[in-house]
């Protein structure tokens, strides 16, 4: 399990850097600030679900992908340019071990920041005027960690494929704009264009629309979170579609690093 050794080292390295502590503090701050702004009138009580849905979806949905891309875009190319990759590959690790180890290590580090950063304020919220829906709160936190991991995987894949640090950074920014602000309008245009599919295409335009919607990790994530808050996660009418959304997120988690690895395998260091 060579990739696990790489993952553990990467995790340890991340823990020793300041970004992890900084991000944990940032998440605690986001939840606390949202709680303060949305605090209920005296005597009233608000569910934490409302808090997360209102504040969380806007802040988390836009910022977590960006944070994940920033944290991971340099994972492979940075080591390649500094030369520490040579030290790593002098040991019995394959390039696949490096790429997947990095995905696992960075995801674990970022997920730790998210889980600690979300759960710590929850304990305080529960004591205050919020009713804590523990299941939904934890479910939501785990989905945020999954979203972060998917974007880490995309960034690491890109980092392995990119020929230089500068291109890796530019590409990461491009990927962010593609997936977060622009995807909806792009997929809308695609749907308009294919409204009338010729008969021989075995897909309806609705199917293509759904695929485009769920194919974006951010929209798959936000759709799943609404199911979590509604208490219908993988149980309600849309259970099968939700399962597809989860599978698509897992697909990204593996396919993005794999695609990067294919290019990385052919590179001279």
């Amino acid at each position, binding site marked *: 399990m060579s990739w696990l050794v790489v993952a553990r*080292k990467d995790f340890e390295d991340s823990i*020793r850097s300041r970004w992890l502590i900084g991000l944990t503090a940032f998440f605690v701050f986001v939840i606390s600030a949202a709680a303060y702004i949305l605090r209920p009138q005296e005597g009233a009580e608000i569910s934490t679900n409302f808090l997360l849905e209102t504040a969380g979806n806007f802040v988390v949905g836009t910022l977590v992908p960006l944070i994940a891309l920033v944290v991971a875009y340099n994972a492979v190319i940075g080591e390649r340019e500094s*030369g520490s990759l040579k*030290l790593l*590959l002098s*040991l019995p*690790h394959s390039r696949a071990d490096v790429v997947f180890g990095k995905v696992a290590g960075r995801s674990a580090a970022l997920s730790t920041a998210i889980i600690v950063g979300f759960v710590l304020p929850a304990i305080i919220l529960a004591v205050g005027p919020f009713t804590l829906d523990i299941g939904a709160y934890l479910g939501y936190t785990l989905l945020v960690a999954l979203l972060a991991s998917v974007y880490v995987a995309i960034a690491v894949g890109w980092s392995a494929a990119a020929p230089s640090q500068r291109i890796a950074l530019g590409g990461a920014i491009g990927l962010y704009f593609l997936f977060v602000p622009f995807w909806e309008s792009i997929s809308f245009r695609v749907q308009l264009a294919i409204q009338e599919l010729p008969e021989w295409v075995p897909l309806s335009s609705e199917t293509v629309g759904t695929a485009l919607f769920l194919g974006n990790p951010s929209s798959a994530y936000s759709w799943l979170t609404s199911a979590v808050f509604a208490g219908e996660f993988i149980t309600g009418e849309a259970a099968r579609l939700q399962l597809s959304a989860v599978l698509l997120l897992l697909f990204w988690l593996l396919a993005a690093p794999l695609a990067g690895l294919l290019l990385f395998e*052919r590179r001279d260091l």
Partner: protein
Amino acid sequence: MSAIQLSSVTKRFGDVVAVRELDLTVESGEIYGFLGPNGAGKSTTINMLLDFVRPTDGTVEVLGESVETAGAGLRERIGVLPEGFDVYSRLSGRKHIEFAIESKAVDDDDPDEILDRVGLTEAADRNAGGYSKGMRQRLALGMALVGEPELLILDEPSSGLDPNGAKEMRDIVEAEANRGATVFFSSHVLGQVEAVCDRVGILNDGELVTEDSIEGLRAASDSEATLILTVDDATDDDLDGVRALDGVSGAAVDGTTVTVACESDAKTEVISTLSGAGIEIQDIETESTSLEELFLSYTDAETVDETQNDTAGSTQPETADMEAGQ
């Protein structure tokens, strides 16, 4: 079984040929010094041994396995000190060694023992980011020693080390060889390999220009001499007769000075051939060749050598030292 076998290996980077049709064999158990000026293709060759860089042509075998197909498992049997590496600045020296132990899955290695061997005991718990070049070099050597590898591949191991450190490095190389390991290491300074190597290969401009034991090289340098003759007048064409003689490896003329590199016992014939060509010799000086000069004659443009036009622009040893120190 050979520890390393390169068969007609060529590596091109775009239009630049870094290594050309290289055949090289390192036998099991020997200490092989891979010499050459900076830019000769030593690191490219070593990077191909480690699958960091893939050859354009030819085959590379390490410990009997093709590097291309062997996968990462092969590196469990190899210790590597790469060139141009960096450490993980936030991890301590000890963490680096522990990481190597974990990676090679050799739980019985003691990190403290290895740190002691490479002289890093006191700095073991400091972050490697604060290490000097020499300490980083020691750390990477320590990582290479983990797991008693069958083969050690060390790229410029002495760079960044003071003379004392270089001596310790040589002691470790010898100790590893006595344990039964094969050691393959590169250097641009002959003095570093002379004392420990069983055999040396000299690489210049991507080609192996000579391969011999240190004794063989020394014998060659003892029998080599440089004749410096002051003459009335000579052209380059006048020297053709001299170049055709047995035992003459090169001849050049600069104004009234003729320089001839030849075997010691060919001297009289050189002089009589020049006289026979109608050249009046006014003064004769002889210099014997040192081992270092012999090394330079294979790699340097300034020496009297028929191949001087091909090797023009190769690095002077002084600048090579400076580059290595960066």
